[in-house]
């Protein structure tokens, strides 16, 4: 039986060695301030052509399932880790690519973007992952300020444990990673238990471990 796309993607990420755990001692701190016992380095996947190829194929299927066929005029990638994935997706779909930068440089309509598009261009914004969705708002604003029609925001991984990320589409979630880890024994049972406890109450876990407790 073909595994569900999310489960297959999660297994690819685990097998690529992109999942790091710290279940004793100091946790990870994400730049947003959350404390976490797990850190998933999706951008590591760009180093593995076979795994990368399969991940993109799964993402393309998921994107079509979420938004329908021919729903976009262009693909936008978030600086920095979103860019390689967005570039491959744009290439597969034969669509224009635009890069959304963290900060604008100079002034003018495209000061926070690289590329060229007409106002009204239907845009899919792609990033590698999201924690609480806050940083995506910055990229979305940049595109909308340049009069792009941002139809969707899509990430390969949505932690989906830090509260509402808005309507962000994703290929997989932390839950998929943990399910795949348990099914294929890809993480030690002890740490896995800690991470499952974290996933059940990420805000509380973060606060107890020195991180922020909400946004």
């Amino acid at each position, binding site marked *: 039986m073909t595994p569900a796309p999310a489960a297959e993607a999660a297994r690819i990420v685990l097998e690529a060695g992109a999942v790091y755990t710290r279940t004793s001692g100091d946790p990870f*701190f994400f730049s947003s301030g959350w404390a976490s016992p797990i850190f998933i380095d999706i951008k590591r996947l760009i180093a593995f052509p076979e795994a990368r190829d399969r991940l993109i194929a799964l993402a393309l299927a998921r994107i079509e399932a979420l938004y329908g066929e021919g729903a976009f005029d262009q693909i936008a990638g978030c600086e920095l880790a979103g860019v390689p994935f967005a570039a491959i997706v744009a290439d597969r779909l034969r669509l224009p690519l635009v890069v959304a930068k963290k900060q604008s*440089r*100079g*002034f003018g309509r495209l000061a926070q973007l690289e590329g060229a598009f007409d106002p009204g261009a239907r845009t899919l914004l792609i990033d590698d992952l999201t924690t609480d969705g806050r940083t995506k708002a910055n990229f979305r604003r940049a595109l909308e300020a340049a009069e792009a029609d941002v139809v969707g925001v899509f990430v390969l991984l949505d932690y989906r444990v830090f509260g509402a990320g808005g309507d962000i589409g994703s290929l997989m979630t932390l839950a998929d990673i943990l399910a795949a880890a348990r099914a294929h024994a890809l993480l030690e049972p002890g740490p896995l238990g800690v991470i499952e406890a974290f996933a059940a109450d990420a805000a509380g876990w973060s606060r107890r471990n020195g*991180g922020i407790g909400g946004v």
Partner: protein
Amino acid sequence: MQSFIGEIGSAPLLFGAGERALAEQLFAGLKAMSFDGVGISRETYGPGETQAMALIETAAKQHGLETCWDAARNLIVRLPGAAPELPVAATGSHVDSVPEGGNYDGAAGVIAGLMTLIAAKRLGGRQRTLELYVLRGEESAWYGGPCYFGSRALFGQLEASDFASARRGSDVTLGAAMAACGADMAALTAGAPLLRPEHFQAWIELHIEQGPVLVAKAKPVGIVTGIRGNVRHRRVVCRGEAAHSGAVPRWLRHDAVLAMAELLMRIDEHWRVLLEWGEDLVVTSGIVETNPREHAVSRVPGEVSFALEYRSQDAKTLQSFGALIRSECDQIGAKRGVAFDLGPALPTKPAKMSEDLVERAAAVAAAKAIPAEIMPSGAGHDTAVFANAGVPATMIFVRNEHGSHNPNEAMDMADFFLGAEVLGQTLLDIAVQPEGDRP
């Protein structure tokens, strides 16, 4: 070095040996009377400035030129044309200097102007009157403020705050110093212009270049397209939250210094990109201070203050850049939990030079085979006051090795004579033409 000058151009040279010898003699005379042991000091509305002006007046009179002093005690040297009712072709510069400054900053333009009037008298055939303005009070070193007191007085722009500004290190006011020089304070405080912009057909000022461009480009002469304006924030304050440097983790900090550093690096990145797009811009943060009463090695800084100055030839660029800085302050403030207080923005308007005059000067340089660089002026000058008052204007820069405002200014006399050629010939060409609208 000077012998080759007569050979390089196909067009004849304006200045003869007499004018050149006079120039050398005047530079030497100015230096002798203003040397302070280190450099040259000619104080704004001070005795040294007046003495230098008197030296110029004496030389002008000896060569049969008319002189007069205006209400602001600027010296005006005049060579009437056959049609004195026409707008005049004018030049000039200042003779004050910063303390321990150089001998050429300002004086070069005055002496080149005097050479021009003397040569014009010798050659004859002019319709328009030629005028040389020996201006006072250009340097901000003595009384601070926006300075350009002499040229601003011409156009009735001096304000009460100018007269009240105190001399560095003393409580003498500019108003008192002006009065002591014999200025008509009643006329000046009334604020009536001494001249209308329509008095001038053209204004061209020769000045040493105060930047490194001409040396880098290996050209003796520059022709100025615009004078940068600037916006100054004398004291921006960034306020965060002081904390123990060991106990407080990164994401709980509101570090004022890191926020300032991020702001400055972002500004630097915007600057880099704007230059790529062809905007004219320079940005400087020349003062940075944490508060010594509370700063410490082991304390996360809760407050930092810094100066911010940016200059451009384009008023729109200054405006857009200001908006960009404010938006970056907001973004970084929100991200890092700090607040930036920019304080007042003190603007000086940029001045655009007359394209027609730039073209005329460039054509003169080409005809005389004088290598000339078309360039902006980074530093401010009296010419900006003329241009912003509506007088068609430009400047001629002379290569100068070590910057200005220091005793090591190194202007080669051969370069000076080439610059003077461009100045003098361009003005003379305008003076002989009775026709034509103001450029």
